[in-house]
């Protein structure tokens, strides 16, 4: 009994030591993320700043007298614009949702085929995909415009979607995850007589959840914040998306008066991103629970 007691107390000492180490890790990580989350904090705090605090010099990080005036200003400036603001929101949603869905679909299907079916010639294709990732996008912008223009997409909302579906970076990302996919699972499916597309959708996709959840975040962030594509491909005011519309608000003659409205709009635009990020991270975490793979 005495012996048992001793070991138990020893274990407690060990446990305390271990917990102490974890406390240290937590403190360090909290300090680190406090630092990395500054832009997000700033974004929120600025949205509630009254005008005099927005133009304070030296600038203050946190808001002192929070106000909702920026949001009412935003509503006001939106209702006065010729194109209703909901139009931009709908455009943005439409473009982003379709782009994300199609890029996930096209990349997973292609990457799965490249790794597991591996038809002749596709290894070379993969090298090609990597190579194009490394060519500076600034130089290809103008040739790309020429291509989009010659297809007749300019000034159509499709110009914001179709050219952004096949992205080398996205394909590469998924391809790397497919490599970890156990072949035994595919063979089992084949023996069971599952069709190719059924296998892809019902067996491959669930296991690839961490991969496509991550891709959704990347693709969502880049599409939702894409300012460049609408700038060069769209002239029609009614087809523009949020990032460009925001610059139009902030750029107008009364730009100083609208700084508050822009801060409010910027914050509102970030909320869906945070929601998408969080729900996708939850999906990543769920993966192991649902897919009982043996690797």
């Amino acid at each position, binding site marked *: 009994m005495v012996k048992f007691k001793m070991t138990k107390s020893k274990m407690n000492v060990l446990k305390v030591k271990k917990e102490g180490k974890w406390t240290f890790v937590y403190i360090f990580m909290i300090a680190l993320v406090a630092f990395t*989350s500054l*832009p997000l904090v700033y974004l929120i705090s600025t949205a509630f700043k009254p005008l005099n605090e927005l133009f304070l010099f030296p600038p203050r990080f946190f808001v002192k007298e929070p106000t909702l005036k920026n949001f009412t200003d935003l509503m006001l400036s939106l209702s006065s614009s010729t194109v209703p603001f909901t139009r931009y929101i709908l455009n943005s949603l439409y473009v982003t949702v379709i782009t994300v869905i199609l890029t996930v679909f096209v990349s997973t299907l292609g990457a799965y*085929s490249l790794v597991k*079916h591996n038809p002749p010639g596709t290894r070379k294709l993969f090298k090609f995909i990597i190579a*194009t990732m490394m060519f500076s996008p600034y130089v*290809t912008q103008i040739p790309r415009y020429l291509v989009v223009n010659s*297809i007749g997409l300019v000034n159509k909302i499709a110009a914001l979607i179709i050219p952004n579906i096949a992205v080398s970076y996205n394909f590469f990302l998924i391809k790397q995850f497919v490599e970890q996919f156990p072949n035994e699972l595919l063979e089992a499916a084949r023996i069971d007589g599952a069709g190719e597309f059924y296998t892809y959708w019902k067996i491959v996709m669930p296991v690839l959840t961490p991969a496509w959840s991550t891709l959704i975040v990347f693709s969502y962030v880049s599409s939702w914040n894409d300012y460049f594509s609408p700038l060069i491909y769209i002239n029609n005011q009614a087809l523009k998306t949020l990032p460009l519309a925001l610059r139009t608000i902030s750029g107008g003659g009364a730009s100083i008066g609208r700084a508050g409205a822009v801060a409010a709009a910027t914050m509102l635009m970030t909320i869906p991103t945070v929601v998408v990020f969080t729900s996708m*991270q939850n999906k990543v975490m769920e*993966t192991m629970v649902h897919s009982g793979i043996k690797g």
Partner: protein
Amino acid sequence: MGCSEMKTEEVIINTHIDKKISQTKFGEIKMFIHKHWVGYIMLVPFFILFIIFVVLPVIIALLLSFTDYNMLQPPKFVGLKNYELLFLDDKIFLTALGNTFLFAFIVGPIGYLMSFIAAWVINQLKLRNAFALAFYAPSITSGVAMSVVWLYFFSPDRYGLLNNLFINAGLIDNPILWTQDPNYIMPVIIVISIWMSLGNGFLVFLAGLQNINKEHYEAAAIDGVENRYQQLKYITLPMMKPQLLFGAISSITSSFGVFDIAVSVAGLPSPNYAGHTIVAHLYDYAFIRFQMGYSSAIATVLFIITYSFGHIIMRLLSTKDE
């Protein structure tokens, strides 16, 4: 099959053989299609869009690098003149080359390591998702919020956080011109870039960690692999090779492609070209001087540099016979 000029008997024999060959060849094609059609069909949607919107523009840009093109008049073929100018006459390009290499050799590896370590640690914490969000915040809020925050730190007047700190501590008497003094521009760009570049690699590593089957750890525990560092060395790192390769390639690509942060810190052109990078140089020629041909030549050189480093990394980290 090219035997029509031969003698009749031979022709008869030959056509007979040809028929047989074509039968087997047809059979082979049939077999080939039967075996691979699904694979090709699945790749087709990506492939078509990739060729039209990615490959075609790259090829056009490559061709433009051999021309003189101001975007108004049609391109004029000049052979290798752009490349000659670039290496023999353009001293600023050499400065940009030096800056970019310095940047890439520091930010690439440090950013890569930090994002992996962060992912590894955060994956083991409670409130993992909250930590992940806070860590990914710089990537979500790219643009305005980000530049305001770093300006808050590095503002070249007395009110900048760092200057304020140093002056109060008695380390300096006058504020340091972080974003204007050529001696400080590059270090400031490097620090801000490391801070900003962590997001994407981090997220991929985080997903990669979830992609490792827990049974591997259990199996290894039986073999005596118990502590975290052994697990990391014997299971996590080998199992995560695909993600590690992806992270490495994308950090090479983004660190050699440094531009946005450099320009928003130091301007274009930066004082004494202290913050001038290859992409800044390329951007300058493409969108300010309208010399697309020359700009494309710069892009091609940058591509060759990036690809060479990428190739080395692929060799080191590849899982299979790639």
